[in-house]
């Protein structure tokens, strides 16, 4: 049996032809899509990739798993002049334990995160949350770097990154820098990443591996979260000494909820409900076809309560409640 890591690491052959060529999917003939016209690059190294980005400027986009970008191209929501495919670059899909946490290459797929043992032991929250991303076919292709760069406010990775005190490493033609997650997500689909930069890896802390929680409301299995809540705690001698609660789907970017975090500190009883109330009262999620603001606030309450209860564990929470 093939190890899924091997599948993930194996170099993917980019389609070395003009994007508009017909691609023979099978013997039934051409399958076509209708993106606007663009030039296609398949560099072999990060250095070449960032050189293209520096050269073309902000009308270039990076292609990783393509699970967000390709639909945007076909819907003509994205109209780049150049597409830089990272699929041929070696070394962007490594998973390495560093300083008690995990250094994760940008091209590590959601599926690798879901099935890898290091992820399960060092950042179990990330391993658990990965299973909520789309369907398996999407997880096989989509990457953690792509998701963080895309910064969909309803996506799992940005919230997990905030809950696990993560950082993002960016490379450009000039320099490499590391940005804390708390400073990275700025607005809807907007991050601190400059157009000439590439995400090369993300780092997740391991200090929450014993007390974490994750709960998500999706209309159907595989859907984007309506609301998702990721919780990381550090517990010392029965008391919560650090709490990070991050939410997806409640604002135009993934956000932490300081009031809810504060509610968890210490040993007070009824903390899960207090945190859930604090979270509910902290946000005014915008309503859409999947539910009104009022409905979403109730989801925030429900999912925060569940995620926090999971993080504190039944013992700690019931002892505190007693």
């Amino acid at each position: 049996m093939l190890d899924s890591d091997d599948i993930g690491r194996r170099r993917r052959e980019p389609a070395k032809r003009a994007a508009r060529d017909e691609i023979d999917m099978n013997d039934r003939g051409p399958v076509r899509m209708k993106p606007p016209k663009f030039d296609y690059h398949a560099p072999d190294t990060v250095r070449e990739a960032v050189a293209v980005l520096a050269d073309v400027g902000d009308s270039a986009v990076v292609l990783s798993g393509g699970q967000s970008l390709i639909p945007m191209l076909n819907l003509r929501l994205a109209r780049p002049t150049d597409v830089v495919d990272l699929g041929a670059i070696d070394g962007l899909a490594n998973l390495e334990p560093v300083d008690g946490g995990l250094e994760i290459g940008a091209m590590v797929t959601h599926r690798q995160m879901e099935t890898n043992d290091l992820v399960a032991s060092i950042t179990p929250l990330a391993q658990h949350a990965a299973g909520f991303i789309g369907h398996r076919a999407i997880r096989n292709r989509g990457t953690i770097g792509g998701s963080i760069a895309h910064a969909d406010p309803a996506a799992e990775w940005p919230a997990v990154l905030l809950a696990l005190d993560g950082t993002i490493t960016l490379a450009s033609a000039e320099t490499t820098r590391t940005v804390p997650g708390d400073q990275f997500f700025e607005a809807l689909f907007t991050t601190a990443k400059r157009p000439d930069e590439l995400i090369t890896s993300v780092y997740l802390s391991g200090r929450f591996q014993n007390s974490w929680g994750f709960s998500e409301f999706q209309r159907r299995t595989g859907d984007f979260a309506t609301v998702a809540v990721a919780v990381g705690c550090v517990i010392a001698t029965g008391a919560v000494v650090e709490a990070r609660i991050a939410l997806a789907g409640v604002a135009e970017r993934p956000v932490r909820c300081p009031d809810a975090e504060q509610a968890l500190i210490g040993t007070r009883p009824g903390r899960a409900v207090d945190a859930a109330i604090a979270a509910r009262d902290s946000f005014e999620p915008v309503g859409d076809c999947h539910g009104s603001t009022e409905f979403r606030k109730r989801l925030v309450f429900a999912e925060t309560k569940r995620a926090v209860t999971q993080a504190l564990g039944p013992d700690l929470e019931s002892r505190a409640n007693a």
Partner: protein
Amino acid sequence: MVESQARRFFGSRVSRIEDDRLLRGRGRYVADIELPRELAAKFVRSYEAHASVAEIELGDAVEAEGVHAVFTGADFADSEIRCVSSYEGFQVSAQPILALDRVRFAGEALAMVIADDEYLAEDAAEMVFADLAPLPVVLDLDAALASDAEVLHDGWTDNAYVRRAVKTDGFDKAAAGAPHRLTIDLRNARHGAIPMENRACVADYDRGSNRFTLHTTTQVPHLIRAGLALAMDVPESQIRVIAPDVGGGFGVKAQLYTEEVACCLAARELGRPIKWVEDRREHFVASHHSREHRHRVTGYFDDLGRILALEADIRVDMGAYSVFPWTATMDNGMAMGILPGPYKIREYSATGTPVCTNKTPYGAYRGVARPAACFSIERLIDQIARHRGLDRAEVRRRNLLGADDYPWHSPSGLVYDSGSLAESLESVLQLGEYDVLLTEQAEARAQGRLFGIGLVAFTEQTAHTHQEFKQRGVPIVFGYETAKVRLDASGTAVVSASIHDHGQGLETTLAQIAADRLGLDLDKVRVEYGDTNQVAYGAGTFASRSAVLAGGAVTRAADDVAATLKEVAAHELEAAVEDMVIERGRLSVRGSPVVSIDISELCRLTYQRPERLPEGIEPSLESSRTYDAAPGTGAYTNAAHLSTVEIDPMTGKTAVLTYAIVEDCGPMINPMIVEGQIFGGVAQGIGTALFEEFLYDENGQPQSLTFSDYLIPTSTDVPDFAVAHLETPSPFTIGGIKGMGEGGAIAPGAVIASAIEDALSHLGETVVTDLPLTPERVLTHIDQAIAQGEGQ
């Protein structure tokens, strides 16, 4: 009377013949067809729901790379789609092929760009600018009927396509005398069939013969031919319509569309084949919608919960134009007819109004109006049960038609031929283990869980022909289907039919019938369909009728051919024709099976050794027959569904846990295919119940344009099924067969609503009336139930 013939394949779970092709990716769909010199079309669509068209600026589009032409409304102004109901007072809409001075729904085509390929067409289409001056939008069907509403078509007095009413003579008296009455208002959301394959067509025009060939994704090639002939004013003999493999239809591909006409006209204009492949974003706005019904129903009943009279007001949002061939009255007519459902209701009064609004036109979708009708009557029965403090199964028992009541003349004028309603109800209670479920429910409630049981009985009108369609006021009265059976000189049979198979398994079931009638193996029978050049007339596949009607026509035609074979064989074997037995590839003499001859030998003889034919027998093993299932009022399938749900009390999310079905569609040609049809239908019905809804903003902008906004059930939303069958033959049809293609989709809305209401009933009262039951709606019901319970 059709002579009996040994059944070898009829009734057996034969694997589908077509699956070998379809599952291996060897199907051939319209988008796979590539004609020499073909060009690609792209439509520029209205972004306004209602506007006058000030100007369409073609800008650089005409000169853009690869562009051959850009057409606008004026270019095709000689054609239109106009489908007029024969109902008195029907207000006629004329849908232009490309918009003229006014657009009436967001998505209506304004211009058509023709280019070398679809990328270039798409690029050029972006350069076309339509200057649209917004007009007041009419979005809500009740608001559309208000006296001050903007009237959407010139010369109309209001936005009702027509207003209809039926009433039995004894209604007023029965209603006045009833001890109890209950009224509920029900809403079904606008949604659609959503086949996997979007629409597509390739139009070809031959200047030499002045003939059109249209390859198109349709369920009804012959009706498309009829519609094109009318729209373009071209004789039918000059139009050939081909529907190859079609990736699902479910009704949405049972209407003529403006794009089909536009591609034909553009092909004639340019002298080159024109191909258009709809993308999903277009599909959501340009392919016909369905299901948006609002009903107000009042039940008049006695202390025992027996319905004495039923009253209904039915409004259906038919969107901007009347569609061909159904008109804008189809859903309304069907709902008015079938609403009394499987119950012994004698007194009935109904009014019905199909309404014109600024939405995508409305067409057929699996079940046509029956899901809404079933929802209304079943919700009413549940309310009666609650009112009388009775078990829901018991109230149904007291109202269902009994075996002695057939043929039943319904108060709406339908004739129910036969059925097993009471039996199917009792069987589903057993199959679904109703008693065990009641215990489980008590346990769940003790743990604070919300667990509910839903129960529904219904009858599905199927295989209805002229009597029904005459009553529905359609301009073309659909009756018969045609089948041609021919044995070739190699001894294999080719069955050509006017119906179309796009997932129903008809390729297999018709082969099963033909094989039995001709004594052949299944692999000696090929079934073909989808080409107006194969058989001259017929209607196509819709309304759960193809197995009955095409099955009947195949039986007749095959029997004709078998009769000729017997003549030839009797002559060869020097025996009497009456003594010929046809079985397992041979004809033999009754009583002396060794005296026999192979069918393949007889076929070769007939065509290649005419000198050996008996006197008066032509060298032809071919027959073309029609069948209309007289008297044309339909064969009635019945079923009962029972399902359980669990609701998350904090979020309102509903999971369907179990689903049991007992169904009676008469003798089953292929039980595996019957079950596949039921399961697929129920899956779609779960979409109706929990997910599917086309939403608009206040300006009429569609909000459901991708599958992340418009949710359909996936495999994780559909439970495993328990299914059992009863087989009550129809006295009206050949072989007693009844249709069943739509049934699965009819009940789930009613079943799941019933289960959700039941899950909350211990908290307090709340009446579930609106679909789909999104988590937010369910939470509202939880709140209502709790508030009502606390207020007690």
